[in-house]
Each structure stands twice: as C-alpha cells, then as structure tokens.
C-alpha cells in the first residue's frame, strides 16, 4: 500500500492539517510520498520523499494547475491512494484529481476499518456510512481532526522539484480577510450560543438574557448568522471564531462538525436541545432535553436569584 499525501500551504505557511495525513497513512500502514505546492526554505517536518512545486510560480490556490502536477506524481509513483484534508482546498481539488485518475472518491473520512472500508458521516453526523472503493486507485479526503497529528519530528524530506502546473482556467486573485471581529469571544469566560433551534429572531433575546445573567457573551452558530439574526463577529466554528471558555452553553445547536471544531475545547459544555440524539450530545458534559423557549427563561431567573 502506497499513499500520496497532498499537503496544504496557505498564506505563506504549511497548514498543520498536513500532518494529520501522516497519522492516517500510519494507521493504514502505508508507505508515503508527499506533494506540496510550497517553498524550499519552508519544508514540512517529514522524512519521506517530497515532490515540491514552487508556490511562487504555481500559486497556493490553482486547482487546474495542481491537478496536473499531482497527476504527474501519480504517473511516477503509482500510489494506491491519494490523500487530502477535507478542507476548502481539499474538497475542491480531490474530485478533480479523482476524475482524472478514474478513481473512486471518498469524502470526509473519519475512520478506516479492516478490509479496505472507510467510514464517513451522513445527515449532519447523526448517521455514519461504511463505504468501499471499487477502483484500483482511491482518492480520499479526511475530516479535520479525525486523525490527530502526532508531535512532529525534526525530519527533513528528500526534495524533488517539479515544474509545470501552468494549465489554468480558475485564477486566484488574492485573499480577503473578513472584517475584524468587534467582539473578542476568546476573552469571555462564559459563552451562551444560539443555534437554528431558536426558531425565530425574537428568541435570541432569551439567549442574550442568559449570557448577561452569567456575565458572559452571547454567540451564534452559522445558520443564525446566515439568517442575519446575529453579526458574523459572534459566529463560533470553522468559518468564525474558535473559543474555549470555562462554560459554553449551546442552545438549539445540533452540533455540526464545523461548529464543534470551534468550541469543543471549552472546559464545560452544556447543550439544550429538544433532540436527545443531537450530535452535540457527543461532546456535551450535560445535555438538557428541553425546549429552549420554556427552559431558558426559567433557568435565567434561577441564575439571577442565585
């Protein structure tokens, strides 16, 4: 078994998720080579063979070009598997590479099992699917954090430089940073967060009232921000802020992986949800099965009364 790992370089840095690919490969017992569009003076801590394309000429985001380069490496190395992170880079590029190689493609793998089977989530993590590729070469993307990176060794790769990668339809014209957050949720000791389960914008007041009673900040999950009920600066999750308060209360938040990634390091997590099976229950210290519209006013009054 041989795996080609596709590392990720963004805004001048190697992304740490690159090292999660190594954990996955070790779990499979695979021999590895790596591809990276990166820089020679900033090599990954990796002891194997690295195919390095110069990022200053091929670009950090250049899906058509990177697809061509990865196909070249596949041609030479004949791997059984090409592995990406399930990130904005990986989910864009993996299907392109998979199609070019005639490979079966598995997205957001969370586990590998005996017999060449892979586990992926479905229905907002409420279910899992066990899948098996039917093709000689497989392309996979790995869920962020599912294969935690081991501490990196002070190793250096054997570098083989690559040219090419100039076939381009989609061009990358630079990064834009979302507006600076006006609220620094990172400093709050208590965060009370509203999810889709609040139902309508008026109910946000129940969440802010509890946040105030606890001397904390209120926050929101993505659907609440997308609906325009809360400002983006209050969004917790992969595309918002990452927080780790002493107490995080998730009100009506089902627990999509993107949200969990932004709050699972909190010291103590309480979830309030009508759905006993909501995935948030996986990481909550306490799951209160209740309708937040009834529960929050009563609880807030008790907090205020001490």
């Amino acid at each position: 078994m041989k795996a080609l790992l596709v590392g990720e370089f963004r805004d001048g840095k190697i992304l740490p998720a690159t090292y999660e690919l190594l954990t996955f490969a070790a779990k499979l017992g695979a021999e590895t080579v790596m591809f990276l569009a990166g820089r020679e003076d900033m090599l990954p801590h990796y002891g194997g063979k690295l195919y390095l394309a110069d990022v200053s000429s091929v670009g950090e985001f250049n899906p058509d070009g990177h697809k061509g380069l990865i196909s070249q490496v596949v041609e030479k190395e004949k791997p059984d598997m090409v592995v990406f992170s399930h990130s904005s880079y990986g989910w864009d590029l993996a299907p392109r590479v998979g199609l070019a190689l005639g490979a079966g493609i598995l997205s957001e793998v969370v586990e590998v099992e005996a017999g060449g089977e892979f586990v992926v989530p479905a229905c907002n993590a409420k279910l899992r699917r066990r899948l098996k590729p039917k093709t000689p070469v497989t392309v996979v993307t790995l869920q962020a954090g599912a294969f935690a990176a081991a501490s990196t060794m002070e190793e250096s790769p054997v570098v083989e430089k690559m040219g090419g990668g100039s076939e381009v339809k989609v061009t990358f014209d630079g990064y834009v940073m979302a507006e600076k957050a006006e609220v620094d949720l990172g400093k709050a000791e208590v965060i009370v967060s509203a999810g889709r389960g609040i139902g309508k914008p008026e109910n946000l007041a129940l969440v802010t009232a509890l946040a105030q009673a606890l001397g904390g900040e209120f926050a929101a999950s993505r659907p609440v921000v997308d609906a325009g009920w809360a400002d983006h600066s209050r969004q917790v999750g992969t595309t918002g802020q990452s927080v780790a308060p002493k107490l995080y209360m998730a009100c009506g938040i089902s627990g999509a992986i993107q949200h969990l990634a932004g709050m699972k390091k909190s010291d103590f997590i309480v979830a309030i949800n009508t759905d006993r099976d909501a995935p948030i229950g996986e990481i909550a210290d306490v799951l209160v099965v209740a309708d937040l519209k009834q529960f929050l006013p009563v609880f807030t009054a008790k907090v205020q009364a001490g």
Partner: protein
Amino acid sequence: MKILVCIKQVPDLESRFKINAQGTWFEETDLAWRMNEYDEYAVEQAVLLKEQVGEADITILSVGADRVVETIKKALAMGGDRGVHVRDAHSYEKDPFEIASIIAEYARDKGYDLIFMGMQSQDRGSAQVGVLVGEMLGVSVLTTLVRFECDGQRVRAERELEGGLRAKVSAPIPALVTCQLGLNKPRYPTLPNIMKAKKKEIQTVEVGDLLKANARIETIGMYPPVRKGGGLILEGDVSDLAERLLGILKEKTTVIR
C-alpha cells in the same frame, strides 16, 4: 444566457432516522422532505443573474423519486423557467460519480453558460457532484462561493476558506459554480409566483436514458454512531431541570458563585 441549476431534495435533518432493511440507507417513509439548503442559494443566485442580464433561461434539474417534483416546483416558484425531473427511485443507491455522470450526460451539448449547484448536500455532504459535473463537461469550476459576479464573459467570485479568510477567484464562462451558505438571501416564493410556477413545464427523463457509468464506491452499511461521550442527559420538568443544572454548574464550574 442559458443557465442550469441542479438541486437535491433532502430529508429534514431534525428527523429521527431509522436504518432501512438492507442496512445501507435510512428508511424514507415518514420523513419530511425539503430543498437542500445549499441549493436554495444556487437557485437564488441564478435568478439574481437573470434579473441582472435580462435575457436568460433557467432550467431546474433534479434527480430522484417522484417526490422531488415538489422541490422542482419550489425552485420554479423562486424564478426558474422550466424543470427537468430525472426520474430515479433508486438515486440514493448511486455514488457521486454516477449522479454526476447522469447530470453531465443531460447537460452536454446543451450550451449552458452557467451551472449553479449547492457546494454539498445536507444528507451526504460529499461536496463532489458539482466539481465532477464541471470537470466532465470541461468547463471552469469554482467552489464554495460566498460572493458571485458575472459580466457575461467571466465569473468573479470569492470562495470561503477556513478561519474567516476568503480567496478572490475568477474564471471564464462557461462555468460551474458551487454555492456556500450565506452567498445571498434566498427568496420565499410569493403566492402569485407559486401559482405561475404550476403552469411551467417539467420534463421527465428516465434515468436509464442518461446513466452510462458504473459506481466507483460501494455502500457496505449505514448506522448511527456509537455514543462515546459520557455526558449526563437531563430530562423532565423544566423547573426541576433548571434547578438541577444550576446545582451542577455550581459544583463543576467556577462561573456561578
């Protein structure tokens, strides 16, 4: 301008799912069905583009059982011009490569300038079908968009990355774009538009006429994840629950004095 929007009907994710007898998918009876949330942004962006350029024709396509016609009608009420139902009672058994092959087979040679899709579905979330269709058709593919402009020659867009970062990207049309949540504000169909949509044509195509590929992934099984978290579950009367939670927070955290 010719526009195609591909949409998927998905179950309401608040549902309780039961695994089917084969153990490979969920039981589809007793579920409420709706348009995949990401696809609502795709439909809206297509309609906005039509409003911008004036002359455009929007085809709404969905693959699935007969029930998906209801979701096609919703997209027509939002502003689509015509519908295509690729009838397939077994679409849930197909892998993303097969679904993409079906859509590409339909779209090939029809000269669409733009194809809009959601960046993933809420039930499977593979994020593959859009990219595969675009690559099969040989058009530009831009994914995960939170901003979209088209001047009739090029698409200029922003794609969402992690941690609040966005990438500015552009590409010539024809192009396929996949839409991320928050790209726009999907409209609610008005009653007059719902009535008008009833008169719009929905063509039915049998999936067998379009499927020329074999699956590359086999489904072995589906199951609910084993609950690992040893978290406490509190149930009962609201007042009692509030009392118990307050007691726990006083004991286990330092935030309540």
